[in-house]
C-alpha cells in the first residue's frame, strides 16, 4: 500500500461529495480552457491571416479595437516610399450584418494588390476590374450565407453578384467577403479611407522593427506592428484577454474555496483517524503530504474533467454563427498543460490550510473523539 493508494481510498469513501467537488472545480478549469482557447484562437486566427497574405508589417490608427478606425488612403503612398518597404496594400475592413449572418468580416482590398494573391479560387472567378460590382466569398462565408457563384448578395443597401468562392488559407480569410477597395469605400461612404495598410518588406532590407519605427515617424497618429504581434498589441484584444483571464480567475477562486470546503469537511470528519495515524507514529509531515495529495488528486481529476468540458464547449461554440469565420479556437499542448498546472495549483492552495490544521491535531484528544 502506498500513500497514493491510501489517498484514493480516502477520496472514494464519499463518492458523491468527491464527484461534486470534481465537477465544481472541473467547470472552473473548463472555463479556463474555453476562454483562453478562444482568446488564443482569436490571436492565432488573425495572425494566420497575415501569414497567408505574407504581410510583414501592419499600419493602422493608434487605439481602437480589433477593427481600427479609418484614416486617409494617401498614407499608403507615403509608406511605399520608405526604404526597405517592398509592397503596400490598403484595406478597409468592416464587420457587418449580412443577410442572416449577424456579424461577418467584409474585406475591401486594394485592387491588384498582393492581398488577392493568397485567394485560391474554388469555384467561379476573381473580379476582372476594381469597378466590377461583384464579390468573392471565402469558403466558410459561402457556407454560412448559403451562396454560390451567380447568386446575389446585399451589403448594406447595395446588391452585388457573387462571382467566386475562394480558399484564403486561414479561417479569417475563409470567413470573409472579399470586395475591391473602392466598392466598399462607396458602400460605407468612406471615400478614400482605409483602416489597415499591409506592408511587405524587401527581404534584403533592415529589420522590421527599424522600418516600423521609420514609418511611425513619417505618419503621425498611426501605429505600426509586426504582423504576428498585431492582435496581441490591439487594445480590443488586450481587453478581451483581460476579461477572459478575469473570468477564469474568478471561476478558479470559486473552485478553490469549494475544494477547501470539501477538504475541511473531510479532515474534520476524520479527526479521529488522523489521531490514530499520529498515535501509530506517522510523522506530521506525512499527514500533511497525505492531505495535500488528496487535494491535488481531486483537482487533477477535475483538471481532466475540465479539459474535456472545455474542449466540448469550444466545439459547441465554433458551431455558433457569431464565431464562424472569425475565430478558430486554439487547443494546444500549452493550453492543456496550463489548465492541468492551474488545477494542481488550486489543489495545493486549497489543501494547504486543511493539511496544516491536521498537523496540529493532538492525537491523545483526537482518538477519544466519537
Amino acid at each position: 500500500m502506498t500513500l497514493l493508494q491510501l489517498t484514493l481510498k480516502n477520496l472514494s469513501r464519499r463518492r458523491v461529495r468527491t464527484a461534486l467537488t470534481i465537477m465544481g472545480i472541473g467547470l472552473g478549469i473548463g472555463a479556463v480552457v474555453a476562454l483562453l482557447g478562444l482568446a488564443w484562437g482569436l490571436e492565432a486566427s488573425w495572425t494566420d491571416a497575415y501569414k497567408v497574405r505574407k504581410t510583414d508589417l501592419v499600419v493602422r490608427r493608434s487605439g481602437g479595437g480589433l477593427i481600427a478606425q479609418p484614416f486617409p488612403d494617401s498614407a499608403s503612398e507615403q509608406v511605399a516610399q520608405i526604404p526597405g518597404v517592398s509592397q503596400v496594400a490598403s484595406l478597409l475592413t468592416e464587420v457587418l450584418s449580412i443577410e442572416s449572418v449577424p456579424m461577418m468580416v467584409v474585406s475591401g482590398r486594394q485592387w491588384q494588390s498582393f492581398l488577392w494573391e493568397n485567394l485560391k479560387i474554388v469555384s467561379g472567378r476573381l473580379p476582372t476590374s476594381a469597378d466590377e460590382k461583384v464579390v468573392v466569398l471565402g469558403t466558410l462565408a459561402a457556407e454560412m450565407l448559403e451562396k454560390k457563384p451567380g447568386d446575389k448578395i446585399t451589403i448594406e443597401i447595395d446588391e452585388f453578384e457573387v462571382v467566386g468562392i475562394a480558399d484564403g488559407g486561414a479561417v479569417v480569410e475563409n470567413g470573409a467577403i472579399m470586395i475591391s477597395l473602392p466598392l466598399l469605400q462607396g458602400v460605407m461612404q468612406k471615400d478614400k479611407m482605409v483602416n489597415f495598410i499591409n506592408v511587405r518588406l524587401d527581404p534584403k532590407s533592415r529589420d522590421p522593427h527599424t522600418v516600423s519605427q521609420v514609418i511611425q515617424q513619417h505618419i503621425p497618429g498611426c501605429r505600426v506592428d509586426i504582423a504576428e504581434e498585431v492582435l496581441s498589441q490591439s487594445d480590443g484584444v488586450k481587453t478581451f484577454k483581460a476579461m477572459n483571464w478575469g473570468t477564469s480567475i474568478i471561476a478558479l477562486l470559486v473552485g478553490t474555496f469549494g475544494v477547501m470546503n470539501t477538504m475541511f469537511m473531510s479532515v474534520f470528519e476524520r479527526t479521529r483517524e488522523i489521531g490514530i495515524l499520529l498515535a501509530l507514529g506517522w510523522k506530521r509531515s506525512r499527514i500533511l503530504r497525505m492531505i495535500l495529495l488528496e487535494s491535488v488528486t481531486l483537482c487533477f481529476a477535475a483538471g481532466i474533467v475540465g479539459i474535456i468540458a472545455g474542449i466540448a464547449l469550444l466545439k459547441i461554440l465554433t458551431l455558433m454563427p457569431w464565431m464562424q469565420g472569425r475565430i478558430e479556437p486554439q487547443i494546444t499542448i500549452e493550453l492543456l498543460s496550463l489548465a492541468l498546472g492551474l488545477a494542481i495549483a488550486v489543489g495545493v492552495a486549497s489543501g494547504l490550510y486543511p493539511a496544516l490544521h491536521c498537523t496540529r491535531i493532538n492525537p491523545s484528544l483526537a482518538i477519544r473523539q466519537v
Partner: protein
Amino acid sequence: MPSPSAANAPLLEIDDVRREFDDGQVLALRGVNLTIHEGEYVAIMGSSGSGKSTLLSLLGALDTPNSGEIRYRGQSLSSYPDLGQFRAKHLGFIFQSFLLLPTLTALENVLVPMFEMPWSRPERQRRAAELLEAVGMGHRLNHMPEKLSGGERQRVAIARSLANEPSILLADEPTGNLDTQNAAQIMDLLRSVHHQRKNTMILVTHDPAIAKTADRIITMRDGQVVEDTQTHPHTAIS
C-alpha cells in the same frame, strides 16, 4: 526486542509526573513516580477518573506532562525531537474501541504503522500477513473492519500494534468492548504475545480478574498511585 542482558533494567521511569487540564481545574495526575522494567507485564487499575488513561497517554508519548519527567531507557521523552518517530519505533497501541481505519482492509490496517519503517513494500506485505496469521486472522486478510466481529477487530489491532516490533505494548481496556468469551480469547492472545515476544506490556483495566493475570498491579486513585503489588515473579526475560 530486548536483549537478555537488558533483563530487569529500567525501561520506563516516571518521575513526579503531573498533568492538569482546563488551566489547572482538573488535576489528572498529581505526582506519579514509577519504574517499569524490561519485559514486565503491568496492569494499571483504577476507577473512572483515577488518571490511569492519562498516565497511559503520557507513557505512550501521545501527551506531555505539565511537570516531571518520563525517561525511556534513561533518555527523557522531552529530549526526543520527534515523538512520532519514538512511537513508531518503540510503542504498540491497543485501544478499547479497536480504532481500525474503516476504509482499509485488515492487512492494510497492519501495514499503516510500517510507513515509518525502512522496509520494502514486499517486506511490509510479508510481515503484515505473518502478524495477522499469528493472531489467527490469516484467513481474513482482505476483509474490511465492518465485516469483522469485535474479537476479530481486536486481533487485527493487536497485529497492528506489533507491526514495527515495539519494545512496549500499551493496551487501554483491550477487552472493554468484548463479550466474556472474546475477552478471554483476547487476553490469552495478549499473554501469548507477551510471552513469545518478551516485550513490556502495560495494560489499563478496571477488571480485577484481568489485572490478576499481570506480573504487577498498579492501583491508582485521584491521580496518584495508591498501591503497587507484585502478583507473580517477573519471569518474562530473566
